């Protein structure tokens, strides 16, 4: 039991100090009937070597993204993360500390959160940001709930370009709260329908850019329409690297911007843990969910940081809190912040350019494949393509050949009626050979 420091002698001695005869004495409040004498039917303890063998074998049964040509995006992105990032987040002082409730001995975490908040505000072009949410999808749901609190209205309009998982997540939460969700049909270009759906009951409009089909969208007109109706505009981004090149949500009129931050600093991890970004205009700050870190001074007047405005939070306000969130994505936010510090504005901008250049190369290659139609007119690093065979089948067949070609839209939205749409993505990790291999494989498959 390598994780347990007590020796049998320690245990005996400690029971003596306590005045208990056996360990069972300490469990005496548990009803007899709920105290099974036998061990549960599970394997006994195993050495590190054995555990490592089992997990390595499981890992080997998966095809890692880096094992060959890879073009999946749709809310999770393969980017290169500098080794420094993973090194730092494994430092004991970051990895094994708690939420910084005791600021005197948590300035490391707190200053990072303050820097993170500032970075997120700069990226989104908004005034303030919180210290992270679980991920982009839950941040979106929280943003809708926040809009409800701010506007005291009960209806939310979700664009047809919103990632279907994000829409479903929002529906789940909003349904529980009794809100009405107008989820517009999936559409590559969803702008007009959104504007049309706004009315005087609308609390908020949720628009994604680049949207799930890769389309980069000028949401300024939607912002105007929303604001004219007294509604808030929530702009969602799943590919945070796009912030390096694309106009920010704030600059286009968003009141709240939420995003999935995984792209920066975090591995794919089969879907989690990720990190939700959440920013808004200053006047809305007291309705924000989640933790906030603020600057202050210590008893000697030295600058320092604390968690603040916690009267919004569950541990103080209980049923009146703005959200029930407690543990968030601290370490993922740290990874995000370190990676972004390494990039700097200049590096992020260049990274975004490299991504877009690769996506253009991908678009050009795919546009030349018979049986493929590129649906996305304007894009950052993702494209939707229409294929002459069902996309799911195509993805499966190419996977068998070692090419992970993209995400069939039907995987995200089985009932969306877009079974022939494949979402593909290119990042700095894609080589020209990768792209050529995909185009060649598609030509082969679609020629039959």
């Amino acid at each position, binding site marked *: 039991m390598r994780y347990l420091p007590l020796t049998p002698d320690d245990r005996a001695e400690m029971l003596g100090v306590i005045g208990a005869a056996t360990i069972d004495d300490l469990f005496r409040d548990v009803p007899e009937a709920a105290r099974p004498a036998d061990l549960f039917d599970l394997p006994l303890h*195993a050495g590190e070597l054995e555990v490592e063998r089992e997990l390595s074998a499981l890992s080997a049964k998966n095809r890692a993204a880096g094992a060959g040509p890879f073009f999946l995006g749709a809310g999770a992105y393969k980017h290169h993360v500098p080794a420094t990032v993973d090194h730092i987040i494994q430092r004991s002082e970051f990895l094994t500390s708690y939420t910084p409730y005791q600021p005197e001995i948590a300035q490391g975490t707190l200053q990072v959160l303050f820097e993170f908040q500032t970075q997120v505000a700069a990226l989104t072009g908004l005034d303030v940001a919180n210290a992270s949410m679980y991920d982009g999808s839950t941040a979106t749901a929280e943003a809708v709930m926040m809009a409800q609190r701010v506007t005291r209205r009960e209806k939310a309009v979700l664009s047809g370009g919103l990632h279907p998982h994000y829409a479903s997540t929002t529906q789940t939460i909003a349904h529980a709260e009794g809100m009405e969700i107008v989820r517009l049909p999936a559409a590559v270009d969803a702008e007009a329908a959104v504007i049309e759906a706004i009315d005087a009951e609308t609390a908020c409009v949720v628009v994604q850019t680049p949207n799930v089909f890769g389309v980069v969208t000028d949401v300024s007109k939607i912002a105007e329409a929303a604001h004219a109706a007294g509604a808030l505009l929530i702009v969602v981004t799943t590919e945070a690297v796009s912030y390096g090149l694309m106009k920010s949500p704030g600059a286009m009129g968003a009141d709240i911007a939420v995003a999935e931050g995984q792209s920066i600093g975090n591995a794919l991890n089969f879907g*989690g843990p990720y990190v939700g970004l959440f920013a808004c205009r200053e006047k809305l700050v007291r309705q924000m969910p989640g933790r906030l870190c603020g600057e202050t001074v210590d008893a000697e007047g030295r600058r320092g940081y604390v968690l603040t405005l916690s009267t919004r939070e569950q541990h103080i306000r209980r049923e009146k809190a703005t959200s029930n969130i407690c543990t968030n994505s601290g370490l993922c936010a740290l990874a995000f912040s370190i990676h972004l510090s390494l*990039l700097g504005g200049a590096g992020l901008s260049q990274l975004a350019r490299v991504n877009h250049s690769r996506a253009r190369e991908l678009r050009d290659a795919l546009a030349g494949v018979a049986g493929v139609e590129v649906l996305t007119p*304007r894009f950052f690093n993702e494209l939707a393509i229409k294929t002459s065979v069902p996309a799911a089948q195509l993805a499966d067949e190419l996977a068998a050949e070692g090419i992970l070609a993209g995400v069939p839209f039907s995987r995200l939205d089985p009932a969306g009626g877009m079974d022939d749409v494949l979402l593909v993505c290119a990042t700095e990790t894609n080589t020209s050979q990768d792209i050529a291999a995909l185009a060649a494989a598609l030509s082969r498959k679609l020629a039959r």
Partner: protein
Amino acid sequence: QDEGLLFEVGGWEKTGVDLDETPGFDESDLGGLVRDDLRLPGLSEPEAVRHYVRLSQKNHAIDLALYPLGSCTMKHNPRLNEKMARLPGFADLHPLQPTSTTQGALELMDRLAHWLKTLTGMPAVALTPKAGAHGELCGLLAIKAAHEAAGQGHRRRVLVPTSAHGTNPATAAFVGYSVTEIAQTDDGRVDLSDLAAKLSDDVAAIMVTNPNTCGLFERDILEISRLTHEAGAYFYCDGANFNAIVGRVRPGDLGVDAMHINLHKTFSTPHGGGGPGAGPVVLSQALAAFAPAPWVVHDGEGLRLEEETAGEAAQAFGRMSAFHGQMGMFVRAYAYMRSHGADGLRQVAEDAVLNANYLKARLSVAMSPAFPEGPCMHEALFDDSWLEGTGITTLDFAKAMIDEGFHPMTMYFPLVVHGAMLIEPTETESKQELDRFVHALLGLAEAAKAGDVERFKGAPFLAPLRRLDETQAARKPKLTWRPEPTGVAPAPLAAE
């Protein structure tokens, strides 16, 4: 030493990465949406390492000393788990790859589910919730869906003991329920008669933490669940304290209908300065059908993810988040479970309870336990009556602990005890470290009683900073760094 903010030490044009050039970059596919307002400082790699390493040393951590936060279960985080989570087949795996290429990952989720179900004696588990509070949300949404399916949609009230975690009422409110508090007995348990009185046909569920936030096992737990079920309500158990009973007691045997499990508490995944966590929810047979999508199913050819809430899965209440849960945490937690095994996990509970009772026994010579009678479970609760007349508060005492090299205990929680001090050592503390802790606290207690007030009021003295002014922070919140309003773009500050 003060470490400047990133915005002071970084350079506006600096970068710590080397990227490909993009000569002749063509903007024509960008829809005219190119930004020119991005200003973020960068650091070269040596500067970045130093910035963060310096900052890190301002933190306390479990790896440095006892971190006795009650209800938080700050236990040792095995490094094997970190290594396993970074295996390329787990870390470098996209959630939407064809399931033919992710069979090992799905198998791991399936095995984790098996362990969680076996350890809790529950028939079903929803893996997707991303933290404890998210798990509570999941549980209440399942309960709500079940009531609606049974024509019991009028049940809109949730009963919660006064001692509950704040997340309980917050979650209930989040799903549109109203909250009614249940009183507590003098011995720190749910008041059965108050519960019985408040249970009625508009109650959807009770939310009870067990072991509870006073560190006590709810002796009448079987009666609580019986009354609840008789009233047509469900029993949601807050599983934050599962560490005290893992491997020894199955919540399923206690009549629980839903319980979240904080993998970052009981199953040792690191807290990371505030997450990420993971909060799978085990469900009783009555609720099993109402779990959120997606989940892993066996079909003829292997494992796949059931992502639709249609057909068989029509009762699922929807989706909690994108994708399918905190895989990185699943790997860590599973590695931990396999390492401990059925025998080791039982020992975990026993040592956690033993350590807490040992602290309770030894500290009680100077401090006042809130519930002196009988054993506690995995945490020992004290009130501040022993500080009466000293002029020293729980907060002062906690801050003085910092100067002794320890993290303070949880303070002023649960709310039912005056000036509460909730101490949870966990099973991964050695007797030697516990003795060092006792020695320090008894020394402080002596100083407090001897009237050495300044040692407490001024504390901490030895931390990177003295006490922080939280009032100022909240009064005029400064939540982001902003350049000085000179109108001129700020240059990085020189160091002198």
